[in-house]
């Protein structure tokens, strides 16, 4: 351990500009270094793993990352591409060649036969950098148009808590509420149940996770909540 001192306890709430550590650590995320001190960038919880320190924000907008599975809304259809709103600072582009394997001739074929404006699609981000807008792909298994159900939006910073470790939390909700749930990294969650009641229960459980995400023992509380209600 090279570090000299950690000034806050793990999982403590920190605010921007708060000194979290002094000495020599490696920064994971949410922290910047000035001189000898490490400052938090966010209102969030402090985490330490070995020599790695990080601050996880409690709120924030989605920022695209290559490999993310997102739920997007088709905003515009062009001759050979779609503009998709994925909730981040940049609009995403989905080329027809990335949307379908079939031969597509823009003279004969209509891109609206693939996706229409307003469609909700599940897609993967295949490329994104600082200079170019994110590009999507829907050709993989399980990607494409979402039919039926409802889409709710949560803060993207809570997505990892909603999924849980190895999907433990989300499978718990699926099991107890008997619904189909797809969680997008951008904070959009698609829920489809047999009836409205089950969908609403799943929504309530997710709301509970979002509200209590920063407190430990979440899985048990959610399990308790779902058992009580179903």
């Amino acid at each position, binding site marked *: 351990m090279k570090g000299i001192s950690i000034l806050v306890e793990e999982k403590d709430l920190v605010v921007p*500009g708060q000194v979290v550590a002094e000495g020599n650590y490696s*920064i994971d995320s*949410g922290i910047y270094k000035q001189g000898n001190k490490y400052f938090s960038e966010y209102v969030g919880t402090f*985490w330490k793993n070995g020599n790695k320190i990080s601050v996880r924000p409690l709120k924030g907008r989605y920022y695209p990352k290559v490999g993310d599975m997102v739920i997007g809304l088709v905003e515009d259809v062009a001759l050979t591409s779609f503009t998709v709103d994925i909730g981040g600072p940049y609009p995403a582009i989905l080329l027809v060649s990335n949307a379908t394997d079939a031969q597509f001739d823009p003279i004969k074929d209509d891109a609206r036969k693939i996706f229409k404006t307003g469609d909700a699609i599940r897609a993967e981000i295949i490329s994104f950098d600082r200079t170019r807008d994110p590009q999507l792909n829907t050709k993989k298994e399980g990607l494409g148009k979402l039919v039926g159900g409802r889409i709710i939006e949560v803060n993207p910073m809570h997505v990892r808590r909603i999924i849980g470790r190895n999907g433990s939390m989300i499978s718990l909700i699926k099991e107890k509420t008997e619904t189909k749930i797809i969680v997008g990294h951008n904070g959009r969650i698609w829920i489809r149940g047999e009836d409205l009641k089950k969908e609403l229960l799943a929504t309530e459980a997710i709301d509970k996770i979002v509200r209590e995400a920063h407190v430990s023992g979440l899985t048990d509380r959610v399990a308790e909540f779902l058992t009580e209600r179903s």
Partner: protein
Amino acid sequence: MSEEIFRLDGRKANEMRNLEIKVGVLEQADGSAKVILGKNIVLAAVNGPRELHPKHLALSQKATVRVTYKMLPFSVENRKHPVPSRREKEISKVLSEAFESVVLTHLFPRSAIDVQVQMIQADGGSRTAAAIATSAALADAGIPMRGLIGGIASGIYEEKCVLDLSGIEDNVGTGDCPILYAPSLDEVSLLQLDGKFTPEQFKTCFNMSIEAIKGIVEKQKDALVEKYVKIRDEILSHEIGHEEVTSIEEVSDVTEAKPHTTTQEEILVEEIPMETETEEEILEIEEEPLPEPTVSPQSLESASAEKHDVFEPARPLIIKNEEPKEESQVSTDNLESPVEPQSVSSESSSPVFIPPDISTPQMAEEQEMAEEQEVSETTSSEEPEIAVGTEEKPIPADAIEEEPLKPVSEIIYEKNKELEKKEQPPARRGFFSSRMAELLKKQYVSEQKEDEETLEVTVEEEDEETPNKNKSDIERDLEFLDYLDD
């Protein structure tokens, strides 16, 4: 600071008005804050980082911070016309630049961070109240920042340095100096100055403001975590209470065997060999090291130790039995944030100063006053000019004769009465008008000989024209003392 009461609301010289900060008051915005500073009521809403429209404003290397300061028509005494005034545009611009210095804009190239600041009610020092709200709202929106900014105005009132000028003090006083400052970085983000200050006065005001801002930022911090602490305390107190009831007989042995601290240590040891994924799981088990809210420390101890026992065996089960779902890759992938902001660009660390092309805030104050004061023939900003320009008439003839309206302190009231009896200059609106006139007249007499002796710090350039300032200062001090003896 003297303990004498000389301010209208009975505050001490270095005392600020009541400050309340509340965060997350709006649902639609990404982040929001409501600030009440005395009579000022401010609402700030943050949206972003989001797509920037119009596109041509986009910067390829960083996000654009756009603060829009607006006053509602009923925010001031007389109706404020809803068309953006020059003053509103100025404040929007200086706030945008001040906050660009602390927001880590390089993380969101080509995007916009929009802040809407609405003055619901204004009463002096509204731009600093707006800055406090903006800072809290930005942090609440999860925008990465190098530090929180606080702001407060100080100035010269009754020839004395005072903190946090109220509306009337601002109008009657001879100097106003709003400062935005980030205590954790020790950086000044905004420094505006209007009126005349001696170097000593400026130093006093500056130090007073910095001290006050440290307190303001502490309040911001409390407001930012308040919501989360509340939820956590609520849940934990519920859980602890629950477990106490269920297993109250068995607790005593467990408590001795495993005091509160061991739970943490054990888990930390286990954590190291595991992958990063385990963090999630540990979070479920570990007891929060908390300021015990409702329960005595002993019971918390026992409950936590108890809890550890209960949950320990459950963990491996969850780890092994769970089949990796379709979304499972998500949890690992999402661990790192997209950019590691290790280095902060040096340019952003430099404090923001007001570029020379902005017109002076004196004008802004004039306009504000013109709107706020019904009979404003004798606004404070005019006073220096009068003193310099016309010897015989330090006070305009058309000023309205009026008795002092609201005597807050009897002493001052008496003083004023006496003064009015001795010499009878036409009284002006406002409580201290006649006294101010007296002072200005005397000041002018001393200034007549050495006209350029006072230090003049303007917003454009902070030039210091101080050839013979010491002499004039002493003279003026003596005069002031004489005056007080009277």
